[in-house]
């Protein structure tokens, strides 16, 4: 080992983003009204967190909580404009939230449709638990809700998804 070389188990921002980018984007999509806003929210979150912690990314609950806060701020500032835009683009196709390029395309699209129809408070818990790799305690911290509430919303959300996404391979 050369003198001065840094020894750290923490991933760099670039490494971290490579593994977490899709998860962050999915969570941002569940919190915003369209893909463009979700991408902007993730970008603003990265900028904010990178400024505060340039050496290594903060813990996941902090990251997701920042995404959520940014999405809420954006929603407040653009509510009227987006309502007009949504009315204008109603019925147009949207990007699938899941990787539908493989053999599970049909199931991914069913899940995408079902997840969009879930109540927002269940959707965010399900997303953080299944694809955000958070525990119930971390979800409770991220969303500022009791752990039991998080678990309850997850249970209801999972039951809803089971009704709309077949277990057997379609």
């Amino acid at each position, binding site marked *: 080992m050369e003198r001065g070389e840094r020894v750290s188990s923490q991933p760099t*921002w*670039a490494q971290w*983003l490579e593994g977490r*980018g*899709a*998860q962050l*984007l*999915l969570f941002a999509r569940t919190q915003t009204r369209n893909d463009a806003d979700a*991408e902007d929210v*993730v*970008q603003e979150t*990265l*900028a904010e967190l*990178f*400024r*505060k912690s*340039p050496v290594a990314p903060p813990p996941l609950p902090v990251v997701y909580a920042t995404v959520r806060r940014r999405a809420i701020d954006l929603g407040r500032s653009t509510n009227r404009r987006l309502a007009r835009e949504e009315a204008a683009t109603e019925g147009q196709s949207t*990007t*699938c*939230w*899941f*990787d*539908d390029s493989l053999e*599970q395309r049909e*199931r*991914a699209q069913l*899940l995408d449709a079902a997840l969009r129809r879930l109540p927002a408070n269940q959707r965010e818990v399900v997303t953080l*638990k*299944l*694809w955000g790799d958070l525990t119930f305690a971390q979800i409770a911290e991220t969303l500022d809700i009791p752990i039991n509430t998080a678990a309850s919303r*997850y*249970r209801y959300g*999972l*039951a809803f*998804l*089971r009704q709309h*996404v077949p*277990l057997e391979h379609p």
Partner: protein
Amino acid sequence: MSHDPEMDPEMERLLRALRPAPPSREIQRRWARVLAHPPARAMARWPLVLPVVATALVAALLILWPERPDKRPDALPVLSRDAGAITPLTAPDRTLHATQIENRVVDAYEEGPVQMVDDVAFRPVRVHLIDTLTWEGADGVTRASYLAPREEHLLLPIPTY
């Protein structure tokens, strides 16, 4: 994955197998640009901001700090018109001197005559007064007055014939 049977582990496994859609190349490039900007740029503004804030603070203190007479110099230098030399200007004399004392009767109430043990009769009178004390400065302009209400009880002898 949850091991709670209510949580439907089979469904969880199936859903986890569906991965979130990866961000597009364009989005990845945008995010990479965000991480390429060194955050030190934002921090570098502080050395510029701090002196400005400190200067503003000192200026505010100088303006808002109450004037302290004991720190005022006894003589202020002024420029003389004639010689162009600097001559001291003595501070004005602000000593006040008492110039007037007044006891003004506002009301007087006569009460019934009383007779003392030695058969001398008196007339009690309750008098309301305002005492005024006035000070004036040497310039004849500065003036301070102190007014205080007061009550006096008098016994005036009634002459008997």
